[in-house]
């Protein structure tokens, strides 16, 4: 059954009694519908009167209903990615990466995408509070000013504790605030600390700095537990650089080599060419052994001895050393360890390989992590001794994420002032709880990498009474200038002169605001390496039979965003679990303990007063001696999400009232040799015998044919194809090709002409890291609801993009392939054939349209879809929070109960681009339409375009040798093609994804 051809006179929707009945089904339905509707509506009056309320004074530069874009900077973490905020009628509704930005280059991660929802969080602190009672800023300013003066008069200690700050104007404000106060100290720390890298460079290069890494320049990348594609320092920037050298094409079949050593399973490890399991306490020796092997090849002095001899991984390390040495000057070694010994060896390796100035740079250091763990430790001692008179905390949550030894004496600080969104643990302890402005409602600036200055612009006036730290400090110094004036004046005095006087300040600043950033071209010299700095100790004893490793998870990171429901419901790329953290155990360890996924265990960690109960998650690729638990969970107040999903008689709460989502283990971390470590903790596991349901999406919506039903030889479907670089370069076809091309007999009528456009998408699996930025980007764009844990566990998550994870390999060599799966807009769509009400029909542009108003919810289409990408609205998902509703995309319907939905190829964006082209009187050009997932992708793995245009990029991608369609053998002709994953492995043994494990 197809979209019916049109008949003359079939257009009118109003049918007058007596009109000749056209003997078609549509005419019948119309007659029946009209009759029933009008009889039902006898006596009804016109609908409610609607009003149009316009601004009294027309806003300058904006037109109602037309989106405009504001260039600003993301403050979801300290990476400082460039953002274009899409605003409608005076409010931001969607964040997108700024394609011109030199660091993030157009990508924006899941965390960044979700920032727009945090802005509209209705539980944010709205006004200042003193001792828990609402107060006004005038009183706060007066009391604090007096208190500061009093402390300073008697030479007391004022401390400012913040996360990493790279905003030049804020740092200048702090400097002004500190001027003349010898007792003042500003302490910066990062919950995900990389302080050891800075410390190690202080020792080896004489500068306490974090180098900027250039993954795009590296031919060989060796990573020791640095999850640089997912969570480490600046994942969007690193992933976009990494991907440049990871996507071979038919003409240039070459790519970089990426080797990962790690204890848990990360997206970075999943994407690596070779992956080895290495416990955190084995890192120092492994990196030392690598240095020793490189030294051997370099034929130098040979400063390291005995690390390589008898090493468990001697052969792979020697092999890697040879590859790195061969790529001298184009090699990069990184480590996510916060251990100075490890980082000392990493520096040595990079020096030996000639990396400084090429693949990493200290001349232009990164300022994305500036925390100093020693300073935090010192502050902890001061607090414990009761020596701090006034502690101001901003942009940090030490009561939650620092060791309990820090949090306990925190309340002893004579006066605690916390500037935050008010949802954090630290502000609950504070005498002065002050509301902070959200990044989207404040002006500001940043310098994520030295010489790269970016600006923040307010997209909306302060929704509440928030202030930035800069503004707060200015007020406390009696400076009454507006916040944006403070920023502007700082730029006038300090930033503008660095760019030469060729341009007037106003023009310079205006251009910077419009673009979002400015960059200095010149960089200084690389500091010299001091060979005598090499650490001596290489032995790091294991903490016991089993060690606990705390790791950050994609999206939630250090937990600062735990109040964001999008991130809570985002399936973790590795484990696919939502709404919880858990104890990851290897298969062997789990078998030894006699537990499986979902069994509750009790973890005893010395740093914590009592044992914590966590569900087990058996993770292939995990080190046998390591229990890995994600940070970022157990945030106070997360029981707000108890009823986030629909409430009905069978539903259960997402989290019990008064409890938290997940468990917080961050306080068990410790300062070890001056660095904050959470990867070397002794732990005891006790099996409770109870179980706990985990809402994992891995086995939902599977493409697999149920066991026993598959025809012989088709038990495994080749959804993900992987080829080796060697085979690809040799011109071999894709593995499994014999299954495809089933076009001999075509039962489908060729009745879908696509005269103008044929929209299509291509996804490069070689570049896809599974980072899930597209999932959240799509959610923001298409008003996809959050359904809560209970609904997720019933397979009812609503995400339009599902990232399928396919594990490959065994033991040490486990990696994973990721495949974003969404509606494939099949030309011969099975869903269209089964819909009894024509709610899903084909457009003349190749789109499989879903018409919500026609849908009656039979769900036949979802059942027949071979990709399982259709989502049904089982409920009216909650939209009662009127503030949060401000985020909803006004160009997309909010679906109601009983209708089916799915990826629409961002039909609203196609329409928008067409309307704009019509307005400007030109044809649509390739690249005019960027769909939401494509826009957010840090590695540009997703491409959208018109297949009818043979010159379009997507047409070219479709012709590549790596291109294939998933389930092509069904002859449903998907409009999406995937480019096979390529692994840089020498032997041509292509593999394909195996059965899907939870």
């Amino acid at each position, binding site marked *: 059954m197809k979209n019916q051809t049109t008949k003359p006179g079939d257009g009118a929707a109003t049918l007058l009694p007596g009109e000749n009945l056209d003997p078609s089904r549509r005419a019948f339905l119309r007659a029946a519908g009209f009759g029933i509707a*009008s009889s039902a509506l006898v006596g009804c009056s016109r609908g409610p009167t609607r009003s149009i309320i316009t601004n009294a004074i027309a806003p300058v530069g904006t037109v109602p209903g037309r989106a405009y874009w504001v260039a600003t900077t993301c403050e979801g973490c300290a990476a400082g990615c460039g953002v274009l905020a899409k605003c409608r009628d005076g409010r931001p509704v969607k964040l997108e990466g700024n394609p011109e930005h030199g660091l993030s280059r157009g990508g924006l991660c899941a965390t960044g995408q979700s920032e727009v929802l945090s802005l509209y969080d209705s539980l944010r602190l709205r006004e200042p509070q003193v001792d828990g009672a609402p107060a006004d800023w005038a009183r706060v300013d007066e009391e604090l000013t007096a208190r500061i003066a009093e402390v300073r008069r008697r030479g007391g200690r004022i401390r400012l504790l913040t996360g990493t700050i790279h905003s030049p104007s804020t740092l200048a404000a702090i400097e002004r605030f500190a001027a003349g106060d010898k007792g003042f100290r500003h302490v910066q720390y990062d919950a995900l600390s990389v302080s050891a890298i800075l410390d190690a460079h202080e020792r080896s290069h004489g500068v306490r700095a974090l180098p900027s890494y250039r993954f795009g320049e590296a031919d060989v990348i060796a990573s020791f537990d640095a999850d640089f594609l997912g969570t480490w320092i600046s994942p969007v920037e690193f992933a976009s650089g990494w991907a440049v050298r990871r996507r071979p094409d038919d003409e240039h079949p070459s790519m970089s080599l990426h080797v990962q050593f790690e204890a848990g399973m990360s997206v970075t490890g999943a994407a690596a060419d070779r992956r080895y399991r290495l416990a955190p306490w084995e890192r120092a020796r492994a990196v030392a052994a690598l240095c020793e092997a490189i030294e051997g090849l370099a034929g130098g002095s040979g400063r390291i001895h005995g690390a390589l001899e008898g090493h468990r991984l001697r052969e792979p390390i020697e092999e890697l050393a040879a590859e790195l040495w061969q790529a001298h000057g184009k090699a990069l070694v990184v480590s996510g360890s916060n251990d100075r010994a490890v980082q000392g060896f990493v520096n040595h390796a990079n020096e030996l390989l000639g990396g400084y100035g090429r693949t990493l740079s200290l001349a232009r250091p990164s300022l994305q992590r500036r925390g100093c763990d020693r300073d935090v430790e010192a502050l902890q001692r001061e607090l414990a001794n009761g020596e701090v008179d006034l502690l101001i905390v901003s942009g940090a949550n030490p009561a939650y994420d620092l060791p309990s030894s820090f949090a306990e004496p925190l309340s002893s600080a004579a006066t605690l002032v916390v500037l935050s969104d008010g949802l954090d643990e630290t502000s609950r302890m504070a005498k002065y709880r002050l509301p902070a402005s959200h990044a989207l409602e404040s002006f500001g600036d940043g310098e994520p990498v030295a010489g790269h200055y970016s600006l923040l612009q307010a997209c909306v006036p302060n929704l509440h009474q928030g202030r930035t730290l800069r503004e707060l400090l200015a007020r406390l110094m009696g400076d009454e200038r507006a916040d944006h004036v403070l920023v502007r004046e700082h730029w006038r005095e300090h930033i503008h002169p660095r760019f030469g006087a060729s341009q007037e300040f106003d023009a310079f600043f205006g251009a910077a605001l419009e673009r979002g950033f400015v960059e200095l071209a010149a960089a200084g010299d690389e500091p010299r390496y001091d060979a005598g700095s090499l650490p001596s100790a290489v032995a790091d004893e294991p903490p016991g039979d089993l060690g606990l490793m705390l790791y950050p998870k994609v999206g939630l990171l250090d937990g600062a965003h735990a109040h964001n429901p999008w991130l809570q419901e985002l399936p973790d790329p590795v484990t696919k679990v939502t709404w919880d953290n858990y104890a990851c155990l290897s298969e062997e360890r789990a078998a030894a303990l006699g537990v499986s996924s979902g069994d509750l265990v009790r973890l005893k960690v010395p740093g914590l007063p009592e044992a914590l109960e966590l569900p087990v998650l058996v993770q292939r690729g995990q080190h046998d001696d390591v229990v890995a638990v994600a940070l970022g969970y157990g945030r106070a107040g997360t029981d707000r999400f108890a009823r986030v999903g629909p409430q009905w008689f069978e539903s259960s709460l997402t989290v019990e009232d008064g409890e938290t989502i997940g468990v917080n283990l961050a306080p068990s971390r410790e300062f070890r040799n001056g660095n904050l470590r959470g990867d070397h903790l002794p732990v005891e596991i006790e099996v409770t015998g109870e179980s706990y349901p985990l809402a994992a999406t891995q086995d939902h919506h599977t493409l697999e044919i149920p066991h026993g039903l598959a025809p012989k030889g088709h038990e495994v479907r080749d959804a993900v194809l992987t080829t080796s670089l060697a085979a690809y370069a040799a011109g071999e076809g894709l593995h499994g090709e014999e299954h495809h091309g089933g076009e001999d007999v075509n039962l489908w009528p060729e009745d879908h002409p696509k005269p103008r456009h044929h929209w299509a998408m291509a996804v490069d699996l070689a570049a896809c890291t599974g980072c899930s930025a597209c999932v959240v980007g799509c959610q923001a764009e298409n008003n996809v609801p959050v359904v809560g844990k209970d609904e997720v566990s019933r397979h009812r998550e609503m995400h339009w993009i599902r990232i399928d994870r396919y594990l490959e390999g065994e033991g040490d060599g486990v990696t994973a392939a990721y495949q974003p799966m969404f509606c494939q807009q099949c030309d011969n769509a099975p869903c269209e054939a089964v819909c009894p009400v024509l709610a899903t029909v084909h457009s003349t542009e190749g789109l499989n349209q879903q*018409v*919500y108003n026609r849908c009656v919810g039979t769900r036949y289409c979802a059942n027949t879809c071979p990709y399982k990408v259709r989502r049904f609205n089982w409920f009216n998902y909650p939209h009662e929070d009127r503030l949060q509703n401000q985020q909803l995309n006004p160009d997309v319907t909010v679906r109601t109960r009983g209708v089916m939905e799915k990826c629409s190829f961002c039909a609203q964006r196609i329409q928008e681009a067409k309307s704009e082209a019509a*307005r400007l009187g030109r044809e649509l050009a390739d690249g005019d339409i960027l769909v939401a997932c494509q826009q957010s992708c840090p590695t540009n793995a997703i491409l959208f375009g018109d297949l009818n245009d043979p010159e379009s990029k997507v047409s070219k991608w479709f012709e590549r040798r790596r291109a294939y369609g998933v389930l092509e053998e069904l002859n449903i002709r998907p409009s999406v093609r995937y480019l096979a994953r390529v692994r840089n492995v020498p032997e041509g043994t292509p593999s394909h994804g195996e059965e899907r494990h939870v």
Partner: protein
Amino acid sequence: MSIHHKIFGLCCALLGSAAVLSQGTVRPPGLNQGYEPVQPIAYSHRLHAGELGMDCQYCHYGARQSRNAGVPSASVCMNCHRFVTSSLDAKLEEKARAEKEGRKPERVFSPEIAKLYEAMALDPDGNPIPGKEPKPIEWVRVHNLPDFVYFDHRPHVARNIACETCHGPVGTMDRIRQVAPLTMGWCIRCHRSNPADPTGKGSVTVDGERVEDHVSTNCVTCHL
């Protein structure tokens, strides 16, 4: 169509006719044709668009750049009404009266324009009244499409489709009235009878056959 279908359809249609007869007019749910509500200010399109011949897009400037044509802010009205506060007759009358009484003529306000000054919080001389904020005027919406329709003015304006095609002879209406039914069938009839490319260059053939190239009637053209 089987006989059962016909009978059922006929019954339904009869029921519908009964409903129509009891109400007196035909108005399926959601159809607001003929709607002509009283507005807070008796603004006359007949005077502005008809008699004075003002361009529709002077006030409804959103139509060419945005989905929404928009109703102008009061500040847009003030572009002219800073100077024009009454009819010329009233002004001349006051002038004559003032001459007779030997005083300077006062500024004359029509009661409707006085409402505009009130909304803008301006005194009769056009100066802001201290302590008063401008307040938006709450107009009554006439042309209202259901929430699931995403009509876009831009392509229509770009094709030079006269506003009157959909909005009726606005230049003759003192009070704005919905003339067209604004139903989907009405939209589609127009889309079907017009070529996709008005220049005629873009007619398309597939496998040698000329295929339909009228303006898109795909669902996602309007339903997003």
